[in-house]
């Protein structure tokens, strides 16, 4: 019997009991739909993060924190480690800061660009306003650590990190509420930031020049970018009247390194200083791992559905073998080999898997693309991210998943197929 005839026969046999076949395919479809949609979301999210990272740049930029602090954070995650005895030599609170000597020591690590180490001072702004309006708007800010980081801008430029003029970029929508004509019209204008002094609580105004307007992005996380000059002024306003020792405590530092340099070596050097370093790739990696875990959990559900579907395949084919005992006997009497009988039933199983996964691919594409369109409507949560496809179907993924499901179906079909292949033609023909 030719392969094409075996495949055709297998499919026409499936059509003999349409409802039973349909229900079996439906069970496979539930599993394949879940897995394919999950994979598509995974691809979508990852490619979005990759696009953002590619646009963010940030090669050769590293954030440095005391290792003890990370250990504490991990300790919090890990739950209670039991009581630990107090050790004045290892005072945890002291280790949470980077002292001046250590900052200089970082510069000596091979690969770190000399003069690039800078304490990272997180500052807070009470509100932002301008002389064009009386309204005050909440604002969250971040210092732009390096001009290696590309910011998505709808107008203007990034703040220049090496400038001594205070420069800021605005978030989408701020240009209008601050009384400027539009995004482009805000460039070069002055905005006033109100800073609360940490000692007295008085509000101190710091002026800054708008150099650009940001596009929505996950990298900036809803914060305006400042240059070092502006960040220093805000920090000074906020820590004025505080004892110098307190004001100059450094919790985080940033540094630039030669992108060609051995990153592991740099991290080892930081470890020796009781510090730990994290690049943008590291933090993106953490974010991806987080998404991956969620999606793996969902894929496991899909896998369980497939397992149940496999039992459905076994059941369907066992019934089919039973019903077709005489036919199998006749065909074997006419010279059909046991191997071809096995193949014929295997192809029935594979066909069930094929149609189930095809249905899964088709419907998940429909659902996924509809969801994409809906979530990008104004007011929905992806409205600001036109480039982000929540679900992204790649042909390779779809083919791999379909092949995987067909293979699982084949495995499920082996038991009934062996049973059919072993039938003795005489017994089968006598079967009532």
């Amino acid at each position, binding site marked *: 019997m030719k392969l094409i005839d075996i495949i055709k026969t297998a499919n026409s046999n499936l059509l003999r009991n349409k409802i039973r076949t349909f229900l079996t395919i439906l069970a496979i479809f539930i599993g394949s739909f879940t897995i394919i949609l999950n994979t598509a979301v995974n691809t979508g999210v990852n490619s979005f993060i990759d696009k953002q990272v590619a646009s963010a740049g940030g090669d050769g930029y590293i954030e440095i924190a005391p290792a003890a602090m990370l250990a504490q954070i991990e300790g919090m995650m890990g739950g209670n480690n039991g009581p630990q005895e107090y050790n004045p030599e290892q005072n945890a609170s002291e280790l949470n800061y980077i002292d001046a000597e250590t900052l200089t020591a970082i510069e000596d690590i091979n690969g770190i660009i000399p003069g690039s180490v800078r304490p990272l001072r997180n500052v807070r702004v009470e509100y932002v306003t301008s002389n064009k309006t009386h309204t005050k708007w909440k604002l969250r800010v971040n210092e732009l650590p390096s001009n290696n980081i590309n910011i998505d801008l709808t107008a203007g430029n990034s703040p220049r990190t090496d400038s001594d003029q205070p420069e800021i970029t605005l978030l989408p929508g701020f240009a209008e509420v601050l009384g400027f004509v539009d995004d482009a019209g805000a460039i070069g204008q002055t905005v006033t930031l109100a800073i609360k002094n940490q000692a007295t609580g008085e509000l101190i105004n710091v002026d800054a020049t708008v150099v650009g307007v940001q596009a929505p992005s996950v990298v900036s996380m809803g914060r305006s970018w400042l240059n070092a000059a502006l960040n220093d002024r805000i920090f000074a306003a906020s820590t004025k009247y505080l004892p110098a020792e307190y004001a100059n405590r450094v919790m985080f530092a940033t540094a630039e390194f030669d992108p060609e340099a051995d990153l592991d070596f740099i991290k080892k050097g930081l470890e020796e200083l009781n510090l730990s370093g994290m690049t943008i790739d590291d933090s993106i990696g953490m974010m991806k791992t987080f998404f991956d875990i969620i999606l793996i959990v969902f894929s496991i559900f899909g896998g369980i559905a497939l397992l149940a579907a496999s039992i459905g395949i076994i059941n369907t084919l066992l019934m089919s073998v039973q019903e077709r005992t005489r036919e199998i006997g006749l*065909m074997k009497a006419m*010279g059909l080999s046991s191997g071809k009988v096995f193949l014929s039933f295997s192809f029935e199983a594979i066909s069930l898997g094929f149609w189930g996964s095809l249905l899964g691919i088709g419907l998940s594409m429909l659902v996924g693309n509809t969801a994409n369109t809906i979530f990008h409507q104004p007011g929905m949560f992806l409205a600001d991210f036109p480039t982000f496809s929540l679900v992204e179907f790649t042909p390779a993924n779809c083919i791999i998943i379909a092949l995987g499901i067909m293979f699982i179906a084949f495995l499920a079909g082996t038991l009934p197929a062996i049973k059919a292949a072993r039938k003795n033609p005489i017994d089968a023909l006598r079967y009532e």
Partner: protein
Amino acid sequence: MTKDLLLETYNLHKTYGKKSTKFDALCDIDLKINTGESVAIIGKSGSGKSTLMHLLALLDQPTTGTIKLHGTKTAELPARRLNRLRNHEFGFVFQQFFMNSNDSVLNNVILPLKIAGIGFRERKRRAIEALKIVELEDKIHAKANDLSGGQKQRVCIARAIVNNPKVIFADEPTGNLDTITGEKIMNILFKLNREKDITLIIVTHDEDIANRCRRQIRIQDGKITSDGKTQKGGAK
């Protein structure tokens, strides 16, 4: 006229079960069947006539003894050769038809050709040829289920001859048919025997059918009780 030796059996035994349940279905069968013969295997139910046919048709292996087809010991042939032999040289007609009742007449007739791996066009051409012989070429696209019992058995004969076999094994071919229809079916089978020199091996308990065959082999309790030319009339 000397005929080629088709099937030979020597000292054939077939035993079912073990020890206490042991049952001898066939005992000491020695036969020689020539090409072009029409042989009736006659016996009551349980006499072993069907078992003998299964052994001759290479559907089953004897417990002891030798079967030769065209002079070759069949026990020495690999399963693939046996399958090929059955597919190319044998045709089967059964009392219960064994058709795919939901399939078309054409698809039922081409089954042996499909198994042989013959292409679609050639299959159809030969199916039409076979259906012409049984005078059912106008029913080619009919559903097997919609045919009468006699028509069904004619389709089965078309299926049995579609691969131009040397032998047709017929197991009670008229058992499910009325006398007149059964008569027609036998006419077709004997015509094939006469005109195409196809060997007929018919298992039956019907004396009228047996009397139309040239040779009668009577079986009782697994043993041949008589084997010889039909006395009155014989095949026409």
